[in-house]
């Protein structure tokens, strides 16, 4: 069995609630009902997603020792996708139109596509994607070694189906809620608004920035004067007050 990757992308997730202890056989057994199932011989376009182990990419066995990942538990899932190669479809359509001497109608194109799918899809091999994750049971954290939306969604769905707990992406809010902050700060975090760092002086944009050093020495307002946390809101309030008058 190869070792776990040492580079690439990583998306952290948290969960709440309890899942089985990965040191127990029951944990490995719980993966089996959601194991990967092959679509090698399928005659239609489809996607199959399920657990495998780093030692067995078929999804036929789930030995606890195959999940050994040092300080974590090494999970792996497999996504096979079978789709009609569009180039084949185009070649067959071009040949049919050449033989007929005219373009196929929409109905004929649809029928041709269906015939070709019946003939070709059983012979088409699916594309295979293996995605790893490291689960840290005590920390209720899992690191997914993929950052694409589809991989994150597939993993979250599989995790939920297997352990019946919902994963939460470790985004700035969720990471903040788990940080070592006081209850007051936690409350403040939920209601926090972005700081609007002000733009430079209206109307003078880059020119004012280029001359900021000189202007500062002359005591004139500079870009720096406008880059204050409350600058925009203060300007807005002043404008609102003028409008009211």
């Amino acid at each position, binding site marked *: 069995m190869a070792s776990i990757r040492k580079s690439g992308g990583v998306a952290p997730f948290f969960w709440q609630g309890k899942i089985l202890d990965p040191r127990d056989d029951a944990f490995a057994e719980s993966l089996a009902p959601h194991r990967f199932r092959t679509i090698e011989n399928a005659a239609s376009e489809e996607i199959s997603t399920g657990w495998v182990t780093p030692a067995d990419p078929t999804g036929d066995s789930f030995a606890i020792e195959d999940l050994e990942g040092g300080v974590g538990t090494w999970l792996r899932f497999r996504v096979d996708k079978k789709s009609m190669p569009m180039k084949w479809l185009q070649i067959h359509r071009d040949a049919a139109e050449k033989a007929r001497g005219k373009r196929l109608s929409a109905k004929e194109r649809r029928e041709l596509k269906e015939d070709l799918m019946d003939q070709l899809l059983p012979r088409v091999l699916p594309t295979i994607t293996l995605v790893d994750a490291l689960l840290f049971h005590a920390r209720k954290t899992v690191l997914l070694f993929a*950052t694409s939306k589809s991989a994150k969604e597939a993993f979250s769905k599989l995790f939920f189906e297997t352990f019946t707990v919902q994963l939460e992406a470790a985004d700035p809010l969720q990471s903040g809620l788990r940080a070592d902050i006081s209850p007051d700060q936690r409350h403040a975090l939920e209601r926090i608004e972005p700081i609007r760092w002000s733009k430079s002086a209206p109307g003078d944009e880059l020119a004012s920035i280029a001359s900021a050093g000189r202007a500062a020495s002359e005591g004139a307002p500079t870009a720096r004067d406008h880059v204050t946390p409350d600058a925009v809101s203060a300007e807005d309030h002043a404008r609102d007050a003028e409008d009211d008058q």
Partner: protein
Amino acid sequence: MSVTDQGAESHGFLGEEFLTWLWFRWEVDGGEFKLSGGRVVGVAIDDFLSFAALTEDETEQTLRRGLPTRTAEARTALRQGHRLRKARLLIAEGDRQWTGTLDGPTLTMSGVKLPDDAEECESESDRTEDRAANWLALHEIVQSLYGLFLKERLDKEYRSSGAEAQAAWMAK
């Protein structure tokens, strides 16, 4: 809705503020952070920066290679109040060093490179153990740094202290 408000439910803007704060702390204080448990890490911004657009009409600016933090374009973006959306970070703890691009709004990392495998690793399982520990350490470091930032950001005096200092730095 402005671009900076996107991901409001997940507080994506806070991740951007966090990245910009890391840059600020690196330039002003040298980038050394004392984390809980006596952990000391060094953080530096490497060769990739991407600034968040302030509005949907604005161009998102990406700077790569060399020393992008030293460029006039980067200073201009800061002066105009742009936050960092993504940045390639160098993170060091003891003799271990990680590199990777942190995406502020999601706190995911791409293009991560772990420290070299420990010399005592003799088997694949040794390497897995070593790398798993390094992945976990990277995650903990990023979360701890974010926690440090939040403590400062959520302080009641933040706007008159830390934010003012950062505003002055951004305007330099």
